[in-house]
């Protein structure tokens, strides 16, 4: 899977996780910190993590998810662990 393809899926997941119609996913960059700059509450964070697990067919453990900060970190991790 290409980085761009994963990025598009991540944008879609993040958009679904935010209860705000004015949110613009095009503002998400590779350097954005997922659980601070984009997703700001715990339930949305949980939603993002679980949706990534479902979409890419792997499971995060509690320690790993703490280490992943930026969108690029997520893309790298997904590329390494994705079942597809």
């Amino acid at each position, binding site marked *: 899977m290409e980085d761009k393809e994963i990025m598009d899926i991540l944008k879609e997941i993040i958009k679904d996780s935010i209860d705000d119609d004015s949110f613009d996913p095009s503002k998400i960059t590779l350097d954005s910190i997922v659980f601070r700059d984009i997703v700001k509450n715990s339930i949305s964070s*949980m939603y993002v993590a679980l949706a990534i697990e479902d979409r890419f067919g792997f499971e995060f453990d509690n320690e790993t998810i703490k280490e992943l900060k930026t969108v690029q970190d997520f893309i790298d991790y997904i590329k390494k662990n994705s079942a597809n």
Partner: protein
Amino acid sequence: MAKKEKKQHTHPLLRYWIKLTGILIVALVNRPKVFFANRGLQGKHFKGGALLVSNHRSYWDYISYFFLFPFNLIRPVVSYEIYHKNKVLTFFLDLIGAIPLGENPADFSWMKKTIELLKKGKKVIIFPEAHFIQEDKLATFHSSYILIARSANVPIIPLYTDGNYHSWKRNRVGIGTKIYLNSFKENNSREELNSYVISKIEELSRNVKANKGHHLFSFKNFLWDLGRVTVYFHLGIAFRPKAISLEKNKTNRKNGTYILAANHTRFMDPFILLCVFWRKRVKILAADVVYGLNNSHPVRAFLLNQGGCVKISRESLDLEAVSNCCKHLKRGYPLMVFPEGHIKRNGEMDALKNGSSMMASRCSCPIIPSYIVYGKKWYNRTKVYFGKEIYPPKDKTIKGISQMTQEVHEELERIKIIAEKENGR
């Protein structure tokens, strides 16, 4: 052709006679064990026309379902290849009133006939997978049955069979509740309705599998089971909890997967609910503070884990806890949560957390709002009120989840008003 028509019209009395003579033999061979999604709503007897939809494992499915419902004649829809496989099978399928598909795929006379029968109040079973699936998962469902049910204006009843017919193991069958297609919007496509029916059959399959190993006691869950029974005998005498369902025709201790979302006014709340559900292995979502901070109480933590508690962190993103709860739900067991997230002793309800709705949405299971009212005096019974089940919306995004939480909150507030009125508060 005329010969075929004659064969297909076996007299109902003859079919009842076959049922009467064969029911005992089939019951002994298959030893069917039936799981009901909600026995109060749908048992083994059907009134009016109904389209039964099931997964397909073998030829024995026709026989098994024919004899499973003692008071109803169920006519199966059978593919052309199976119907003409051999003369003995054709003879038997004719006897039970099978509706064969045409040789030409463009021949829809079977559909017309099925709709006519359903409109007359008959029961027809259809296997939309169209061929036998030996694996433990469902294949693609052809959605033509949705068209049939819509045209005949009859409900769909999802069924599941595990296909154990020729072994010492018992045949496990799941019977779901009626799905009325007219309760859906007209613009819902056939595929959307089809996937809804599939999700119901999948849910049945999970519940049937979970029910498989369910015994009052098992060595694997020894402490858990011992705890359940001990709690029931001690607190059941002390508090005498009484379960009250506010919904008509609903059993408040139903089988299957659901999340119990209760108010939280005392530390005793989970024990009261355990008393009510003592026959079931209910997992309880417990905050990390209950376990003691920094693993300072290992014995307590061990006992809580053995007693069916799942620890969830309040501070960090605890994916493992959510994953554990979802696995438990998918195995077909209930889960108990206190969505306020803390004890509120004055009885007022705080805003609910979204976690329970998210798990319900992921596992496609309902939330049953429950409200616990303690007696004023020590000798008064504790009452547990159950409201209407809240099903997850089709919108699986955070908006849908928030909406579901809002619905649960409103239902809890409604139960609270009724409960307080009844108890003179």
